[in-house]
């Protein structure tokens, strides 16, 4: 079974991967904000999508009125 996810452990490591400094005075707020994202992401990630649902852009030809 996967270990429980801990935003406090994850945030500094992920920030380092993109060279993003996390000032100590902001760390608590960042962890709290990321925990909110993690909470809403969990049921979304558990929602199975059909494989034919793709995120690619859709080309829709316009009616020629654009200049």
């Amino acid at each position, binding site marked *: 079974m996967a270990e429980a996810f801990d935003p406090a452990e994850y945030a500094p490591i992920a920030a380092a991967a993109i060279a*993003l*400094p996390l000032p100590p005075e902001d760390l608590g707020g960042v962890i709290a904000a990321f925990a909110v994202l993690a909470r809403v*992401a969990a049921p979304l990630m558990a929602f199975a999508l059909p494989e034919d649902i793709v995120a690619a852009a859709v080309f829709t030809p*316009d009616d020629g009125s654009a200049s």
Partner: protein
Amino acid sequence: MSAGESLCALSASVRKGERSAFETVEAALARIAAGDGAVNAFTAVTRERALVEAAAIDATRAAGRDPGPLAGVPFAVKNLYDVAGLPTIAGSHIDRSRAPAVRDAALVRRLSAAGAVLVGALNMDEYAYGFSTENTHYGPTRNPHDLARVAGGSSGGAAAAVAASLTPLTLGSDTNGSIRVPAALCGVFGLRPTYGRLSRAGMRLFSASLDAGGPFGRSAEDLAIAYDALQGPDHEDPVCAGRALEPTLPELSKGLEGLRIAVAGGYFQSQGAPEAIGAVERVASALGISRRVELPAAGLARAAAMIVTSVEGAELHLPDLIARAGEFDPKTRARFLAGALTPGAWVSHAQRFRRWYCRELTALFRTVDVIMTPAAP
């Protein structure tokens, strides 16, 4: 301009010469000078420009030409819209050092072409990432109905300026509710158009795959006449639809006849306060609406929008988050920093969910024209 006067009536009186655009705009500037101190809706007032443009409207009429369907209507815009001569600050301290815009945003130009007169720029949450317009750099915008309360956000200045009768028309923007929420909290009308229906050229975006510009006004009719002036393709905004104009003002006189209307059930009946849900029920009852429809997985749609927004907003500002995070508003900084840390799988799944949700709602809207929900919980 009386407090309840419609934009149609105001512009008609200017077009007929019953009053001048100049005196109409002067009166708006006087109201802003007298009333904005308490509300704090404006971050800039374009007085000189407004008076010059108003005089030009009067000159056009005097020459026998039509000054347009919004002749002499004072308007103001959320300060993420480009206004020639002003830096586009988008509620930030950082962007104050940007060069002034060299021309107006597309929607500002369209309102001006219709005869409306820009009188200023309006307060907002920094980079549109908020719902309260409690901006640390420029102060909070207060709700004109109760100055101890928030106006909502992120287009709080745009809603409060209309609610306080400082100006009858404003423009805001909406990513996940930034027109709908402040309109509801300030008791005015707001329209978030379908994504891609109005040009965003010259707007400082927040989350490019969700952002839309739109008007605030004092009635559905005011929104309709403004929306009709704002419509149209624009090759400068790659997501702006190339569809022909669809005038809405003539549709209003048709009333509800033939419209299929329903109240949203499920998620929308469980997430709001009883007062908000009760308000929708009273409107439905007055209109004789009893049908209920369920929007599938609405809570997950909100989650997907939150993830997409946080990632796109953070990526847009990543260089500044790395180099000068301390200059961000403390009220938005943690959210932007957290958005930069979001795993790619969440983002891709959120975008795929969005496609699925779009397909589901397209099917639903084949059976219904209007779905009523509370605008804010």
